[in-house]
């Protein structure tokens, strides 16, 4: 039997096995989760959580699905946080400094407190990627923010009212669409298919019997 520890879920004390994640501790304690539970493996950001260890001042941000319970952990979940998402047409905007100033001007009100970085559930350098966004260094912002799961804990701690995940998403889309060089082989292949360059080969292979296909498959050359 696992060691049992006390945790405080929304302030109420429960005794749970020490090996559980926070999410499992909720379920162990009898909660049927609806909100605050998504992929259960650290990718979707549904289970944003804030906690403090009793007697300590530090406030921690984490994902409930990927964080083990600790003794005397006081847990509040943040299943929804009102991030401000600006509407834009990706085909019409350009990766200029103006677009960030126009859509997310509040990033220039950052006071440099670094609370966002301290709260990040993915240990990202959030304040740094906001700094890149301020300077329209979108590629750097994209790289620095790439692992963001958009849980919103950073924004919940921001005195300037910045919606960091939305800023980063805009920077990534600008980078992916406009800044990274075009994949010419891809554009070319799309054109070739549209022009019917592979129609013959496709008709040919679709005309094969299963036995012929098996033979082709079992003897096909695999690229090294």
């Amino acid at each position, binding site marked *: 039997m696992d060691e049992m520890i006390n945790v405080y879920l929304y302030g109420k004390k429960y005794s749970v096995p020490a090996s559980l994640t926070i999410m499992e501790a909720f379920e162990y304690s009898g909660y049927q989760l609806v909100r605050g539970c998504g992929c259960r493996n650290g990718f979707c950001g549904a289970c944003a959580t804030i906690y403090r260890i009793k007697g300590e001042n530090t406030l921690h941000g984490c994902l409930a699905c990927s964080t083990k319970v600790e003794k005397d952990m006081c847990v509040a979940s943040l299943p929804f946080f009102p991030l401000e998402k600006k509407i834009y047409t990706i085909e019409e905007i350009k990766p200029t400094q103006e677009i960030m100033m126009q859509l997310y001007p509040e990033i220039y009100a950052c006071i440099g407190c670094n609370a966002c970085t301290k709260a990040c559930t993915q240990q990202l350098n959030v304040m740094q990627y906001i700094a890149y966004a301020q300077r329209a260094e979108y590629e750097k912002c994209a790289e620095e923010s790439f692992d963001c799961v958009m849980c919103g804990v950073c924004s919940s701690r921001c005195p300037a009212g910045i919606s960091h995940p939305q800023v980063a998403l805009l920077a990534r889309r600008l980078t992916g669409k406009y800044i990274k060089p075009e994949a010419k082989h891809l554009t070319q292949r799309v054109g070739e298919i549209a022009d019917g360059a592979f129609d013959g080969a496709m008709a040919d292979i679709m005309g094969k019997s299963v036995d012929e296909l098996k033979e082709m498959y079992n003897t096909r050359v695999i*690229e090294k």
Partner: protein
Amino acid sequence: MSFPYTEEMMESIKKVEATRAARMATEPRRMTAEEKDALLEKYHPDYNLDSFAEIIVGPNKGQKAPKELVELLQANSRVKGMDLDLTNPDYDVDVLVIGGGGAGSSAAIEANEAGANVMIVTKLRIGDANTMMAEGGIQAADKENDSPAQHYLDVMGGGHFANVPELVKKLVCDGPSAVNWLNKLGVLFDKDENGNMITTHGGGTSRKRMHAAADYSGAEIMRVLRDEVQNRNIPVVDFTAAIELIKDTEGKAAGAVLQNMETGEILIARAKCVVIATGGAGRLHYQGFPTSNHYGATADGLVLAYRAGASLLYQDTLQYHPTGVAFPSQIYGALVTEKVRSMGAMFCNAEGEAFMHPLETRDVAASGVIREVARGNGVHTPLRDGIWLDTPMIDAIHGEGTLEKRLPGMLRMYMRYDIDMRKVPIVIYPTLHYQNGGIHITEDGMSDIENLYVAGEAVGGIHGRNRLMGNSLLDIIVFGRNAGQQAGKKCKEVTLAEPTLSHVDSFAAECAEAGIKTDVVSPKVLPDYRRQK
């Protein structure tokens, strides 16, 4: 750094380390077709007949499906006994998309592009989906040495030639344009300095055509699609489950009965076309397997469509991903992306032997792992026996820092539990990953029911009896867009007759006639992980 491995595991790691240099110099032999067939028959969970039951009511009567699915297909409707007024709908749209993952979002974007009034309804949030968790990548034949026909051959072979050829043709021929569409939306694919896509192998591919966004490929795609749905002001009704399809008196799809997940309120949606994009079934835990799937993967769409009269295809084939986490307990069953093996990591048994090629197709690889453990050659962990995946090979092959750059999600997942996979191998065992089968569709994305479209993991037939890595992200985009385009066009010529739920009543009558007595209600909507006292 100390690792949370037992002494016995650390001893076994020494053996893995001792053989590493020799293993890196050679490539394990691939199995012959005969060896693969024999292995699958003996060790693949799909061949475990005790875990399947016969469907006794409906279009697939007489066929097999996993017991858990059969129970839900033939269960009681959630609207049973309710007196519903279908004539005053709460929502009235051209296209209703059920499901907010990659397929549903792609469908909604394209239906919107076609000028239709489209709405997404999802029982959790948009993006709470298996798409978000797809790590490894997306296939498309866009390199010079590759072609749609080459891709077709790999898909058919991987699927044991059971795939529906016309669907495979669409998948491979529309592959490059799907990746191009994503790139134009701003998805940040891994590229070299000249813009060439960095592509790798997946299990069973004959060309390096796996495009990726680090190991957040699906997450990157999903967050861009979600942003695009929002930019287009497409309404998303979240935390609302579809619990039954509505048809009209002419037998066409005509909407759905919805239920607010939090308040329980019942809502009626009328629609000229419906797209089911409800995803997979991992949370049904077939055969007691853990799963890599998201919280809502409970096969709801299959239940809804089946009860309305749509047939299923290959509902008896599931994919067990060879590399689920076997240790530690907090991430038990979670996915270790196939990209780890694409980048060179080998399977090793407790003695440090590479007992099989790391990039066989998933069904073969999973069966190989199960066999090796059954032979007693697995690594003992406090949880269950598993197999080493020799992750330190990645930096050894490609240079220090590679794993951190190309597999940041994996590294983070393990580091949370003090396992540095750059330094020590990790223990894996197959996990329930994907529903190969699903609802039968034709090339236009339509099921057997007029104006009921299906896209994504809820579809059966594209992947035959086994899907290759990277073809699911591809299929949700290709068939999601296709369903949206088709529904967006079709809705303009639809005139609905009277709405009805009579199909629900007649299905219940058929079940009663067949002697089925059950307290189970379906769709399941969510699993229940509360502690059973």
